[in-house]
């Protein structure tokens, strides 16, 4: 840490005031960041208080959202959010983890570098652009191929049958998968590369194939970090707005099937907020936001704690 050096030397007379000002203003800036975080929570709570006072915690379990009747319940959106995010994690976790394994353990350097680059680029594509592509290209494609196939093979299972529109929960799940893959891949790759070479050596020396080394020495060592990566991906999936809004169908109801149209918290806020009447409706939308905020912050904190544990290894660097 360089701060010891700096604070001990500032005894130049004329520079003293400037130093204090500089230090002070940088401190303000840093505190502003922390304050911002707190402020977000506080403001969202304050402006949604009406809803909490009216419905209490049953807001979270309420099944009806009817501005006309003045009844607001978050459950359909909570369910939609969790379902869409779960689909995304179920697909993205194995693909992402295997990709991370490939990039850090198996691929030759000449291949790994451009591939990693491309996956990072995927993360940079704006959500609305992916949403546009999702609406006009991906959703119709899914309807004709994957969704049709699932229904034909598994349609007898209640949740997996029913009409397929393309636009709906499943497409939202797939689009979320695409969007959280870079997160999972990047962080998993980091934690896998942090596994000490001596662990791999030990397993190789026992007479193990490369896959066995990965499976028995590398992955167990990196396990908590990989879980952290997946949870971070989950957190991102929970909060993703634009792409989901454009392909999920925006129906305020718990989905009747995997292909039904539904709504997430983020998409509900996105579609209804600007037309909402100030008062209980706006307050309830903000309350929805607060629920989402709590969810994502919890995911984020848990995930980062897990990742830090592997990235800063046992016994120090």
């Amino acid at each position, binding site marked *: 840490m360089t701060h010891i050096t700096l604070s001990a030397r500032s005894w130049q007379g004329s520079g003293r005031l400037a130093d204090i000002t500089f230090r002070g203003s940088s401190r303000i800036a840093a505190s502003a960041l922390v304050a911002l975080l707190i402020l977000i929570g506080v403001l969202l709570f304050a402006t949604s208080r009406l809803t909490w006072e009216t419905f209490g915690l049953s807001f979270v379990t309420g099944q009806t959202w009817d501005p006309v009747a003045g009844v607001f319940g978050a459950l359909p959106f909570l369910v939609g959010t969790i379902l869409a995010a779960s689909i995304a994690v179920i697909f993205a976790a194995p693909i992402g983890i295997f990709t991370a394994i490939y990039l850090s353990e198996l691929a030759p350097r000449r291949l790994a570098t451009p591939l990693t680059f491309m996956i990072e680029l995927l993360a940079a594509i704006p959500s609305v652009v992916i949403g546009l592509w999702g609406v006009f290209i991906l959703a119709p494609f899914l309807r004709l191929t994957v969704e049709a196939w699932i229904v034909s093979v598994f349609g007898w299972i209640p949740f997996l049958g029913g009409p397929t529109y393309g636009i709906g929960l499943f497409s939202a799940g797939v689009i979320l998968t695409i969007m959280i893959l870079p997160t999972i891949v990047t962080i998993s790759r980091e934690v896998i590369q942090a596994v*000490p070479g*001596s*662990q*791999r*050596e*030990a*397993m*190789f*020396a*026992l*007479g*193990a*194939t490369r896959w*066995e080394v990965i499976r*028995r*020495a590398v992955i*167990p*060592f990196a*396990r908590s970090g990989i879980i952290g990566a997946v949870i971070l991906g989950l957190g991102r999936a929970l909060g993703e707005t634009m792409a989901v809004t454009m392909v999920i169908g925006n129906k305020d109801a718990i989905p009747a099937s995997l292909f039904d149209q539904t709504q997430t918290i983020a998409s509900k806020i996105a579609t209804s907020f600007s037309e909402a009447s100030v008062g209980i409706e706006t307050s309830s939308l903000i309350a929805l936001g607060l629920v989402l905020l709590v969810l994502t912050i919890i995911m984020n904190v848990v995930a980062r704690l897990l990742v830090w544990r592997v990235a800063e290894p*046992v016994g120090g660097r």
Partner: protein
Amino acid sequence: MTTELRPAPSTDRPPVPVMPPAPALAPARPEPEDATTGRIEIEALNVYYGAFRAVRDISMTVKPHAITAIIGPSGCGKSTFLRTLNRMHELIPQTRVEGSVRLDGEDVYDPSVDPVALRRVVGMVFQRPNPFPTMSIYDNVVAGLRLTGRHRAAELDEVMERSLRRAALWDEVKDKLKSSGVSLSGGQQQRLCIARALAVDPEVILMDEPASALDPIATLRIEELMAELRTNYTIVIVTHNMQQASRISDYTAFFTMGPDRSGYLVEMDSTVQIFTNPKQQLTEDYVSGRFG
């Protein structure tokens, strides 16, 4: 006690003590009769990292059921050479080997040889103990067995206990087999790694400075252990600790670095010879401490 070194032609000189007589030097043991397994013959071995030759023209024989020590200054390719004996150097990309290494007559670099199978027969212990931290002591020892699909608890238990006994660790850990592999002291961890290597029943055990990260007492225990192990296994140990080599090994090979920065074998002989009557001037200089 000072000893004088008389420069003399290397082919014809009276025995000159090069260091104070070390009572720990035992005469070389005769080659055991049932030595059918664990003999390594190295011929004209060269190791390249890319275009750079790291090890030059090694030809030597590792006698079975004996301890062969490889000594020499740092950076002269001792570890690199050791790793070519179980093809561990292949983990580093762009590494290449020329020449032959024969284990009991079989060329280990033959295209039909599976390095995975080779490493079961030729095991390795590393400089820093590296037990698997996510596994218990029990799981660490049987890790190699599980690779070959042996899962029956009875068999695993038996091999585990036998290996831990052979590694002189059983009494210390028998009550805490389920605790993590890294919960032991450094010396114990290294013995755990040795037990782990023993569990797969190798013929040869390669040790790359196994005690250099340990305190003197733990080092001594490892050395005692190695002396016991040699009755059943061939041991090749790389060490920069000359006294250790003279204490425990039957044969010693002295490596050094040539002008082209590649390592080469200067001399190999029984330990007694190397330390009391080496044939090469370079060897004599090294073991008498003339240069680092």
